[in-house]
């Protein structure tokens, strides 16, 4: 297929066939053990744009009139023009411009893309396909290059509703993992191009996956958290955690909330409170045992580290980050530490640097080095034999590839997990879990199937490969993923392929493993029945 085919009307550009997908190791080398993606209903196809790959992530509704169709095209083009204006895109103009201008199409990046490889190399998922579509639109409609010469050089494209809608969906088939960027000899950031397309859709056309916008940043700013946790519910959940801690470790710990002047404001992804409270409990136990001066916040937005804006909307990103920094300033803490949440690391520690100025520019760090100092510095007594089961480590793209936080988690695991095994590739060369950039929380229609069958498939392959020697379900194994989003995706992957029953593979965070190794615990902290 050719680049320009994206604007030609057809039922579906590609079809994802089970037989095309990346082969998996034992026991999934048996096709009967594989799982097929759900097809969309005819009603869903009618209402939403689904002609890209038969998958709906964004849910772009068809126009009901010619005028609506024209307005859609107009808004896209005017929004696109803004991406190239300094006053409208001072955050990302430079890398966007660089990435559109200098790609030499060597395709060296192709093998980095989890979706492209796992799909059986479907052209539309090639990491250079989407950027090339955008490049051609920009050349013709923004830079207004000579049309005859565009035709002569074979770089023409016809802009219409179908193309724009498909491009909007296609911006959500890239997990923004930026492994392709790392592979590029020129530093072309194809992930950023997906991000910029998402921005035009959200900021200029009012279109974004509802899980990221309406139920995500909007709900977070209004209610307090994208999970819907309001301050009253938080109070109830903290009480639950305190009781749970007492039951598990035999002593009561008071979780500090709104402690003025504390050294650290700890920001957890609020999904942890809802789905993995053992992670937030583990932090409380470790910090208490190590004598760390820390606090949580009970202010709306202050108890949820997430900032989905980093995936699709600069304005929402700034609103959330500013609110979080204000809360830290008002508490008078020395610094903010982000817990096991990858995108919050990127949003709060890296990207927010462009918006937090003056007294809002509070030191912002990862919590991983604190855990490392506690474990490696022998601040608490640990016994590695308590973690004597095969463990592998997933590297969250935002912490590891983007920020270079590679070693703290490894130093911890090497010290407390005698059967620690590295996946291949790992560290900054890791593959995304397949749930990056919001995919792990996009739960509607058949999108969850796509992220398990396609974008997450290479991660499953890596996990199965590293555990091949002990693949029997009789041996319990643990995938450590120090990121809520990755953890949710890995949970869904393991369920989709029934991996617990087939192979005995469980998943969880990092802090839990530390507590599990604490010598004064009577019973194990890790509870395997939560698979």
């Amino acid at each position: 297929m050719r680049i320009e085919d994206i604007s030609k009307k057809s039922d579906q550009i590609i079809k994802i066939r089970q037989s095309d997908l990346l082969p998996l190791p034992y026991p999934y080398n048996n096709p009967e053990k594989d799982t097929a993606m759900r097809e969309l209903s005819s009603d869903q196809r009618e209402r939403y744009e689904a002609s890209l790959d038969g998958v709906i992530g964004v849910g772009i509704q068809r126009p009901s009139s010619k005028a609506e169709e024209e307005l859609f095209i107009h808004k896209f083009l005017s929004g696109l023009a803004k991406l190239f204006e300094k006053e409208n895109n001072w955050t990302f103009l430079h890398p966007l411009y660089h990435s559109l201008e200098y790609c030499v199409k060597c395709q060296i990046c192709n093998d980095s893309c989890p979706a492209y490889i796992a799909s059986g190399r479907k052209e539309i998922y090639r990491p250079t396909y989407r950027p090339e579509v955008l490049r051609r639109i920009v050349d013709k409609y923004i830079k207004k290059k000579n049309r005859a010469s565009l035709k002569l050089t074979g770089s023409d494209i016809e802009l219409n509703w179908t193309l724009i809608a498909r491009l909007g969906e296609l911006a959500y088939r890239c997990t923004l993992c930026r492994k392709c960027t790392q592979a590029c000899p020129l530093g072309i950031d194809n992930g950023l191009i997906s991000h910029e397309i998402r921005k035009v859709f959200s900021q200029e056309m009012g279109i974004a996956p509802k899980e990221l916008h309406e139920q995500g940043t909007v709900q977070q700013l209004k209610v307090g958290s994208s999970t819907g946790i309001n301050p009253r519910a938080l109070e109830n959940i903290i009480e639950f955690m305190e009781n749970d801690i007492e039951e598990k470790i035999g002593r009561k710990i008071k979780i500090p909330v709104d402690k003025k002047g504390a050294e650290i404001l700890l920001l957890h992804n609020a999904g942890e409170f809802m789905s993995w409270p053992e992670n937030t409990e583990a932090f409380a136990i470790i910090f208490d045992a190590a004598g760390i001066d820390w606090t949580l916040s009970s202010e709306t937005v202050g108890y949820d580290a997430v900032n989905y804006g980093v995936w699709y909307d600069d304005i929402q990103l700034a609103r959330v980050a500013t609110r979080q920094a204000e809360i830290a300033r008002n508490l008078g803490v020395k610094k903010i530490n982000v817990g096991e949440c990858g995108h919050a690391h990127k949003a709060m520690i890296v990207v927010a640097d462009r918006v937090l100025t003056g007294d809002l520019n509070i030191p912002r760090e990862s919590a991983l080095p604190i855990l490392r100092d506690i474990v490696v510095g022998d601040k608490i007594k640990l016994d590695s034999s308590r973690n004597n089961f095969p463990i592998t480590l997933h590297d969250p793209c935002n912490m590891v590839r983007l920020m270079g936080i590679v070693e703290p988690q490894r130093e911890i695991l090497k010290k407390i997990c005698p059967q620690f095994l590295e996946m291949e590739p790992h560290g900054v060369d890791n593959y995304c879990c397949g749930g990056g950039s919001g995919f792990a929380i996009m739960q509607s229609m058949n999108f969850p199937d796509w992220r398990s069958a396609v974008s997450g498939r290479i991660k499953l392959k890596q996990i199965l490969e590293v555990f091949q020697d002990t693949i029997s379900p009789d041996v319990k194994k643990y995938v450590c993923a120090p990121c809520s989003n990755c953890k949710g995706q890995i949970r869904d992957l393991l369920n989709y392929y029934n991996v617990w029953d087939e192979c005995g593979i469980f998943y969880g965070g990092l802090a839990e493993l530390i507590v599990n190794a604490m010598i004064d615990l009577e019973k194990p902290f890790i509870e395997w029945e939560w698979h």
Partner: protein
Amino acid sequence: MAKTTLGGIEIEVDEDGFIQEPEKWNKEVAEDLSKLEQAFPMGEDHWKIVNYLRDYYLKYEIAPPIRMLVKQTGIDLKTIYQLFPGGPAKGACKVAGLPKPTGCV
């Protein structure tokens, strides 16, 4: 949003079948939802879970953490999956008339 008939009344549901008008929920609605979730007929434990979810939601405007649900009802996760094959979030919460869980959960 689509409309559908549950428990004899017309209710708005989202793409994945979660009701959008929680105030219209009643036992008959729950039973019809349980049919869609392969959780029919509903026995004592089904109701124990649904009622706990419902009460928590009315009090806190959110579903409880799964660990809390298990602890407070005394029904373990494996049994919840047997009762509601869709699981606690997508199955039991749907039958209880709660909105679809959101955020990184």
